[in-house]
């Protein structure tokens, strides 16, 4: 028995060593060869093409190719219909391109596996935080050449597009964006006798309004700051920014964690007061984006912090609220006269670097197929009409891929004005919003670390805020930021 065990163990160790030796060189060589070439070749392909201008003036590739594209999930029926229509029109124009639908939604936890298994779609969606991460890992194609040839590149909204331009190279195409705000159920406030705060509100106003509307015994909270997953760190970062803090800074070629500053302590102390002084957050505060926004739509919390279109959509279309019951506020300023800073975020489309040059080009053309075109306006109108027929509201993005003041923006506005089921943001509120981009390096790791700190603040009344922040900053610094060398 012992002999057999020893032999078996020995064989396993030997196999492990052999595989380690093989996979070292083999994998590195193979993967580098397979993965690096298309990126470079992709750019070459784009350079070689005269037609990568987004207008689709030619018939596309001579040979039959297949691209897989980001496709809405089954619950978004209207969006799926629009996408189907776009696929039909695109394949009519490019008959040699077969478009395969992929309803995989980007997740930072899944992208590694998708790229490793070469299963990521040719064109996939992502968020504003991910640009640097994807580019550094080699998981987003360098589409600079395609973008340079794009006829409407000057008209892309720079606030959004610039977040995916790194060191002069373009890694993504902006779709829509937002400045994080606070969505308020004003009806609930009025019914519970809480004063509706002014748009130019402050932390003190929030600290007065939230407990006034909360009823812990009935399971109703004043505000639901997210307390689970990376969403918690993301939510809190708004307060860090309002207090004038930074997540990180580049000093002497190194990235240095900065969120344990005085501003960070003020922001975290504000969370502590919201939880323990005001008792205004949900008792089961372990809520991620879906839980918190769902809680808002169900009327179990009066306020939620998010990109405004999400909670407004859920409140109106699922919670049965009326547009008069909801108000989009900017994030509260720390003090009167301060900036209403919120995290600037958005949705982007990224081209898979493992795709062939032709596939990359066609994916780019697909992404921009309807941009700045009458087709976009027709499709938008049909979408709003379909929602009207279903008794639903259309919630426009807070920031579009184009500038709303441009000629094209005015055409879009004209479409919106035709319908009464398009949610209209209060221009006074939008004017107060001050968008600040997220950190460039290891943002998700920072969020994950801060989530633990926030959970400690929500769970432990006697927590030492500064000590927690210092420990978190040290962890982020040593684990994630120290290995980075800024070029």
């Amino acid at each position, binding site marked *: 028995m012992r002999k057999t065990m020893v032999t078996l163990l020995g064989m*396993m160790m030997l*196999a*492990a060593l052999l*595989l*380690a030796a093989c*996979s*070292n060189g083999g*994998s*590195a*060589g*193979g*993967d*580098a060869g397979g*993965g690096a070439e298309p990126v470079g070749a992709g750019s070459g392909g784009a350079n070689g093409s005269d037609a990568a201008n987004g207008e689709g003036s030619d018939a596309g590739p001579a040979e039959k190719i297949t691209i897989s594209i980001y496709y809405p999930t089954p619950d978004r029926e209207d969006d799926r219909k629009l996408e189907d229509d776009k696929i039909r029109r695109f394949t009519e124009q490019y008959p040699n391109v077969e478009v395969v639908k992929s309803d995989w939604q980007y997740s*930072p*936890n*899944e992208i*590694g*596996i998708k*790229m*490793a298994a070469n299963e990521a779609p040719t064109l996939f969606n992502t968020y504003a935080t991910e640009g640097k991460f994807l580019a550094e*890992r*080699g*998981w987003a194609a360098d589409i600079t050449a395609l973008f340079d040839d794009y006829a409407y590149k000057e008209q892309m909204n720079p606030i959004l597009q610039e977040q995916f331009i790194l060191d002069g190279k373009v890694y993504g195409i902006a779709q829509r964006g937002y400045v994080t705000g606070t969505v308020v159920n004003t009806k609930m406030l009025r019914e519970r006798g809480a004063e509706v705060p002014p748009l130019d509100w402050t932390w003190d106003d929030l600290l007065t309004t939230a407990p006034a509307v909360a009823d*812990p*015994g*009935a*399971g109703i909270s004043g505000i639901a700051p997210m*307390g*689970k*997953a990376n969403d918690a760190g993301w939510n809190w970062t708004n307060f860090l920014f309002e207090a004038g803090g930074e997540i990180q800074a580049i000093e002497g070629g190194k990235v240095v964690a900065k969120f344990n500053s005085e501003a960070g302590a003020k922001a975290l102390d504000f969370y502590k007061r919201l939880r323990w002084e005001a008792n205004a957050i*949900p*008792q*089961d*505060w*372990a809520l*991620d984006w879906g839980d918190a926004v769902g809680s808002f739509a169900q009327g179990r919390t009066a306020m939620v912090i998010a990109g405004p279109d999400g909670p407004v959509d859920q409140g109106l279309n699922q919670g049965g609220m009326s547009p008069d019951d909801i108000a989009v506020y900017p994030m509260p300023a720390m003090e009167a006269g301060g900036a209403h800073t919120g995290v600037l975020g958005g949705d982007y489309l990224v081209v898979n670097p*493992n795709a062939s040059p032709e596939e990359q080009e066609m994916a780019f053309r697909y992404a921009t197929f309807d941009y700045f075109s009458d087709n976009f306006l027709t499709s938008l109108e049909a979408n709003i009409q379909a929602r009207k027929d279903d008794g639903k509201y259309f919630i426009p993005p807070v920031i579009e891929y184009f500038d709303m003041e441009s000629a094209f923006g005015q055409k879009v506005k004209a479409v919106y004005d035709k319908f009464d089921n398009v949610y209209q943001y209060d221009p006074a509120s939008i004017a107060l919003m001050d968008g600040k981009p997220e950190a460039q390096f290891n943002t*998700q*790791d920072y969020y*994950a670390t801060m*989530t*633990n*700190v926030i*959970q*400690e603040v*929500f*769970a*432990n009344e006697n927590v030492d805020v500064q000590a927690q922040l210092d420990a978190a900053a040290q962890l982020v610094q040593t684990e994630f930021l120290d290995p980075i060398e800024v070029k």
Partner: protein
Amino acid sequence: MEHIAAEVRAQRASPGKSRMAGKLRRHFWGYAFLVPAIVVFALFLWMPIVKGMVYSLQHIDFVKGNTYVGLDNYRTVLSDPVAGKAVRNSLYYMALCLLIGFWVPIGFAIAISELRRFQGFARVAAYLPNVIPVVVLYGLWRWLYDPIGPFNALLMKLGLDQIAFLTNPSWSMIAIVIMETWQQFGSALLIYLAAVLTVPRDWYEAAEIDGAGVWQRIRHITLPSIRHLIVLMLLLQVIGTSQGFQSQLALLDGGPNNTTMTYALLINKYAFTRLDYGAASAMGVLMFVVLGLVAIVQYRWQAKEE
């Protein structure tokens, strides 16, 4: 000379060869039927185990290629303070599962075996939670644990304070174990019930004639009769719960502040949040070694008992 040596070699080899061939011929279909199982095991069990060992010595980058880093991944894991906390959490979780969950199916199996009527219904009713999809399970128990859910409503009716079952660090792991016990005790119950029902009825009758009550019958007949099964189930539960992470991930994502961060969940976080597959593999190998030792203890114990 060479010719003679070759003949001697052939003579020596042939009896073995023919014996092998004979064996193969006789048991051909037996071996043939083994092939699919061996292939499945090799592809989906043995190869991942060996690959995990390999990856634990490498920095994994599926796109740019892997690089050999020696024991760096092990150093990373062993110097991570959360790893220590995760080990303690896993041990706490395993202990809670034993304390709260282990005796439940035994108790129910014995109770159901004593039922004269509705035994079939009781079996189905007890097993039913096992077939609930986990998504529904988590939704249901979030509602049960809600600050205004049924449990808290009952507590408030009794004049007690609400309990934040999921977000109070003292309660979060307990809440998860209660939920899992409710869902999973049914399958263990069926196994125990089968064992209890094999105990000869005349033993009970003889005990009854001797004046033994229900508790004495359970203590002196039922429990000793299913002793081996109880120990086996105990070891299987220890191995099973040491790898637990699903509920912790789905309900609390390891929070509040890593209170429900189990070892297996941390492996998951290393792999899929930090995308550090090398460190995750190193954690997996360490776990493999520990669980392997537990399995050897179990095997030795079983062999000794037999």
